[in-house]
């Protein structure tokens, strides 16, 4: 396959809205913001770029599992480093990162005051390049198959 063609078009991005004090406190967005966000999401759908979107509950309702060697420790939320937490995400399909940036610039400010939206590209198998040999790929396929069987 022409990797250029693949790379050009087959791109998915996770677009994450960072949490803030309000979202972590479970404060619901204003009606105005909900309406604006609804309109924005509609634009994304109309343009055929939105694959999925979800809002996340505050971290107080979540948990973490910490790994240390073979030890696992469960830590219940809430978590303190608010700015590093995620309050919601979109999965967008676009032809380039620049296109996603253009879309995100059009998003209404998701929070009152300061906020940040982070754009990350989703890995495709092709991205692993030469490191991802046919053997490794076959191994991963076998693992996935095992998982599928157990479901």
């Amino acid at each position: 396959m022409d990797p250029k063609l693949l790379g050009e078009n087959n791109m998915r991005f996770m677009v994450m809205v960072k949490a803030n004090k309000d979202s972590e406190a479970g404060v619901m967005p204003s009606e105005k913001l909900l309406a604006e966000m609804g309109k924005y999401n509609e634009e994304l759908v109309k343009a055929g770029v939105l694959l999925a979107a979800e809002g996340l509950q505050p971290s107080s309702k979540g948990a973490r599992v910490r790994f240390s060697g073979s030890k696992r420790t469960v830590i219940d939320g809430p978590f303190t480093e608010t700015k590093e937490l995620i309050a919601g995400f979109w999965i967008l399909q676009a032809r380039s990162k620049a296109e996603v940036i253009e879309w995100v610039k059009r998003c209404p400010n998701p929070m009152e005051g300061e906020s940040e939206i982070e754009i990350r590209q989703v890995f495709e198998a092709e991205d692993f390049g030469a490191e991802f040999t046919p053997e490794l790929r076959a191994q991963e396929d076998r693992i996935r198959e095992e998982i599928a069987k157990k479901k």
Partner: protein
Amino acid sequence: MTATDTHQAIDAVWRIEAPKVIAGLARLVRDIGLAEDLAQDALVAALEQWPSDGVPRNPGAWLMAAAKNRAVDQLRRKTLLERKHQELGYEIETAQALAAPDLVSALDDDVGDDLLRLIFTACHPILPTEARVALTLRLLGGLTTTEIARAFLVPEPTIAQRIVRAKRTLAQEHVAFELPRGADRSARLSSVLEVIYLIFNEGYSATAGGDWMRPALCEDALRLGRVLAELTPREPEVHGLVALMEIQASRAKARVGPGGEPILLFDQNRALWDRLLIRRGLAALERADGFGPRGPYALQAAIAACHARARTPEETNWTEIVRLYADLARLIPSPVVELNRAVAVGMASGPAAGLELVDRLLSEPALEQYHLLSSVRGDLLARLGRRDEARAEFERAASLTRNARERDLLLGRARGESGDRGEKNDRR
């Protein structure tokens, strides 16, 4: 922002805005060729100004305004030159419409209808199919002529010429930039769906060349389909087509091996199927089903959904698939549908029953050169243990396909049926 960043941003803005700008202009100047030229001029202006001035806050409106100014200039010049022109009245009217101050906001309101007009016009049945495809990708997909040429493995001047000719035909035949109504609408919509599915299929199973798939085209078709589904939310077959494409695209990663070779449905690693696309496809099918009996695209989507729901090949509900193909054969009777039904029957009731149906198709002139008839027949014969006949059919199929990867696969199957190594035929 560096110059490269700005250029990438302009490119991105163009991808997002071009169809809307062209559609809005086309309604005003009533000529999609002229509309595209004006939009291109606006793009050139953006390339000159934005790197120094920065990307404007509302880039779509900026492009529209720039294009509109050029349109007004051109029309004024033309009106002065052609005072006695019979279309004078209309042109002045257009000039006034273009000069209206609330134009941009008016365009925003109508942008959906304009886009739909553009789709219907680009897919007008007056144009040859390949011209419809090129024009649609260019005007609605935001693809350049170079990109279209590369995607279809056709020399660039060929595509450029197709587009120029198509625009000329639309102008010469005075094709109105309108939404088709009444009885005309469903035929025109069929043409649109046909173009989108053709683009998808060219990407999904390339008819020519060395690659089994060209996923970029699948993505373009899916995007067009999703856009159309929002523009015509009450058209069940649009949702049916989107469902079909989403579910088929969900298998994209599983149907190509590491060396680029095709992997057939039953040999695919189903863990690689894209669950997100399957979910979207099933949701689109549900939307289509909300409108009553299924049309041909929704039926094909329902068949694809049967496979998507089966976690292993053994779980496939073949009885349901046979029923769906029977429905499809009633709606669009064709030897190809009949061939597919035969495959399903071969699975539901055994290879002998399938072969009986396939053999009835051997005299079909339409299938005489169709490699899949031989390939299916070969498969059924192999399952019946008639290996020599199976090998001959696979070889024949290999000689008929134009796709190099598929040829390798078929020759491989032919080799599998030769000799007496006593290899088990692991075909279900």
